[in-house]
Each structure stands twice: as structure tokens, then as C-alpha cells.
């Protein structure tokens, strides 16, 4: 059902949350100006970077993202006055947590990209892709399966008749 190339080689997959007013518009501008860049980013539009719940970021990693990018207006330019101030504060703490949980710094990025910075959409995307390619896949869905493999053996045994499980 899926395209064949999906199973071929691994390519980093980035989930991006772009605010409607600056970064989403900048991505549109990159489009209108035909600024070619790496095809790894999947954008979710939100009204403001302040809407990005840290749970979204973690959930994206858990569902298989190799990187998460938040794009918002420059400080002082948020369409909602200071939504991005809240973003930067949460981001700082979430970075600490992710680090403690073994997720590399380069995988989670916050960028201020104004509506006129179509070019920056490209530089940020390409740079992030390059870094993630170096890091390799995060691959949490597979990891979770691998973690739980240690239980499979037992589950099989339990479904077998009792005498086969030895107790002393």
C-alpha cells in the first residue's frame, strides 16, 4: 500500500509545528519563491508557537519522528504579543528533560522564522536534516517493540501447559 521507497533507506523524518503568522507564512513564501530544500519536514500548522504543548513534541518522537522543529515569530513579533515567550521557556525545560531521557539536542529545535524569511526555512530544514542524518534514526516505535521483546519468551511459556515451567 505504501510507496516502495519507504522501506528502502532511512531518511530523517521531522515533525514541525509552525505558527500561522510567521513561520507557516515563511514556508509558503519559500514555496512561492521555489526555494528548494530537503523534503523531510512535515508541517503541522498552529496559530501560535504558544499552542505547542510539550506533549505534542514527545508524542511525535514516540510515534517515530527523528526530529521535532518548532517555528515561531521572532521575540517581540508574536501575533499574540508574547506567545513565543511561553514557548521559549517551555522549550528550555523540555530540552533538559529530553536530554535526561536520552534524546539528543539536535533532535529538538526552536527557530524564529519571520514571514519574510523564506530562505531561512531552507537553511534551517537542510541543516537539521544534515544533523539528523549524522545522528541516525531515533526510531522509538521500533525501540519500544525491542524493549518488550524480553517478555515474549515468558508469554509463550505461560500459554504452554504448566509442568514445563520449573520451580525449585
Amino acid at each position, binding site marked *: 500500500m505504501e510507496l516502495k521507497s519507504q522501506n528502502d533507506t532511512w531518511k530523517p523524518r521531522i515533525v514541525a509545528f509552525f505558527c500561522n503568522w510567521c513561520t507557516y507564512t515563511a514556508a509558503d513564501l519559500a514555496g512561492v519563491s521555489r526555494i528548494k530544500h530537503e523534503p523531510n519536514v512535515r508541517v503541522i500548522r498552529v496559530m501560535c508557537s*504558544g499552542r505547542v*504543548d*510539550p*506533549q505534542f*513534541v*514527545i*508524542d511525535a*518522537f*514516540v510515534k517515530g519522528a527523528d526530529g521535532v522543529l518548532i517555528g515561531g515569530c521572532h*521575540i517581540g513579533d508574536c501575533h499574540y504579543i508574547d506567545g513565543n*515567550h*511561553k514557548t*521559549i*521557556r*517551555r522549550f*528550555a*525545560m*523540555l530540552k*533538559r*528533560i529530553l536530554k*535526561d*531521557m*536520552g*534524546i539528543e539536542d539536535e533532535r529538538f529545535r526552536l527557530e524564529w522564522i519571520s514571514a519574510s524569511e523564506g530562505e531561512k526555512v531552507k537553511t534551517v530544514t537542510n541543516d537539521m536534516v544534515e544533523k539528523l542524518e549524522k545522528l541516525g534514526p*531515533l526510531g*522509538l516505535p521500533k*525501540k*519500544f517493540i*525491542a*524493549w*518488550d*521483546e*524480553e*517478555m515474549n519468551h*515468558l*508469554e509463550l511459556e*505461560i500459554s504452554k501447559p*504448566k509442568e514445563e*515451567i*520449573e*520451580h*525449585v
Partner: protein
Amino acid sequence: MSEKPKVAFYWCASCGGCEESIVDLAEGLLDVIEKVDIVFWPVAMDFKTSDVEAMADKSIFASFINGCIRTSEQEEMAHLLRKKSKVVVAYGSCAHTGGIPGLANQFAREQILTYVYDEAPTVTNENKVRPEVEHRMNGASVTLPAFRNVVRTLDQVIDVDYYIPGCAPTPKIAQEALQILLSGELPPNATVLAPDIALCDQCPRKDSKPEEFEYHGFKRPQWTDIDPEKCFLAQEIFCMGPATRGGCESLCIGGNMPCTGCFGPTCRVKDQGAKILSSICSALSAKDKDEIEKILDSIPDPLGTFYRYGLAGSLLRRNVKLPVS
């Protein structure tokens, strides 16, 4: 007697507090015993695993399992009880969200064993003996349960029907849950049997929280002269209350200590730690990066603070860099 619903209690990786909480039901316990037939309770009664194995599938009405799952034996018992029971209840924080033992998911199995068997200051283990899953001696083999790489919540191992939260569940919450279950009208699957609203709702100090505030830094409770009337957050003492399910009768708050989050999040939240992070950090007073970092430094162990009881059950579950085996 046999008409009464059969009930089992079992403990896995836990401190024993949950068992204690059942004993704490006091007279309430007698009520319970009156209504049910306890068929398995290793802590208090002499039944063997083989007795359970001999029971017909689904013949136990409800099994209350506390503790998280760290060893193969715990897995085995969880599966066994699942098979024999109509209803499985994860009892207490550890079974529910991983609890304190779940914090071990920050470390590799080997790190833990090395510390516990070699490095801990109270240990002398010159021969570097380690527990083995199977040990052969004089032709006989002795086995121990395998110590897993990952700490798991109960529902990461078997299907769980209900949850009773708390470290440990309060007698009130436990009794109410029992009553609900015994009433015959079972709530929807996967319900947490506690109010689905954060603790602030019931907090005796709620009036003292101002509407406008920001955090300039957090004080540690042990070094602070805590105002016993005032909202902890309003005193810039970190409190998990806003992100934690109520129903605990605000016991910690009553003891002049902030909530640490043992009841877990409300049902709408996927990740309790991420949520408290979001709400607290949004309201920092700082505007630029350095100032922000400085305030964040006042929470020395954010992971252990935000995920004290919830790491194993959180979205990430475990430090993702750790080896599988």
C-alpha cells in the same frame, strides 16, 4: 460462602505500602471480607501459586495487583492472574504509572546491578556475586526470576481493567473503588477510580492562590519556612497539584508538604510531566534565555520532580539511549 465474589491481592515491585493500605482499611477491611472471598493474598494468607493455577479461568472476580513489573516472575504472576480473573485492577501508583521504582528507567540494568551489588556503601561483596537466573550446583539447578531491563507499569504487561491510584491509595479511595466494583455496575474499561479533576479542586489552600503571578525561582521545601495556609506555588515551592488527579484528601498538603504527583494525571493528559512542565514554565518571570535557565536551575532534578511517579508510564517510558539487554 462460595456465592461471594472471589478476590485476589498480589504485589509486584513495590514497597509494601499498598498492602499496608489494605490493612489500613481497618474496620472497613472487615466489611470487605464480609462481602468477598479472598482467595489469594500472599502477604496475609497462605495460598500458593499452584492454588491459583488450579482455579478455573475467569473464576476470580477481581485481582488487585500492586507494584510495577520488573522481573519475569512478576510478569508470570500478572499473566496468571489475568487469566484467572474477570477484572484486573492496577492498585497504587507503581502498577498504575510506574511509581518510584519506575524512576529506575533512567538507568541501564547493568548500572543498577553494579551499584546494588558492588558499589553501594553498605555492600561488601568481594567475590562480586551476582544473582543468576539459573545456578547449577552439585547437579541440581536453582533458578531466580530474571531481572528485566525495563520497569513496566502493569498495563504494559497485561490488559488492565481499572486503576486505583495513589502511593499508596488512601483507605477512602480504595474502599470507594471496591464498592463501585462490587456494586455490579462496572464503569467503562480503563477507568481510573478516582475523581477526574486535578487536586487544586479539593485543595484546602486553593483560595490563597493569586490570579496573577509568575515564578522567579523555586524554593526547596526542606530549606523553606513554609506558610501552612498558603498555596505552595504561590510561595514558589514546586507543587504537582495542578497536574495531578485529586481524591487523595490532600494529605500531603495537610502535612504542609507539596503534592508530588502520586495520583497521576487526569484522563485527558498523556504525559503528566510534560503537562506540569508546560504550565509552570509558561509562567516564569524571565524573558531572555539566560534568565530562564537560571530559574530552571532552581529545580535541581526536573525529571525526578515532574515524573516522580510517572516515568515508566510516561510517553517515553525510559531513557531511550539505554540498551535493550
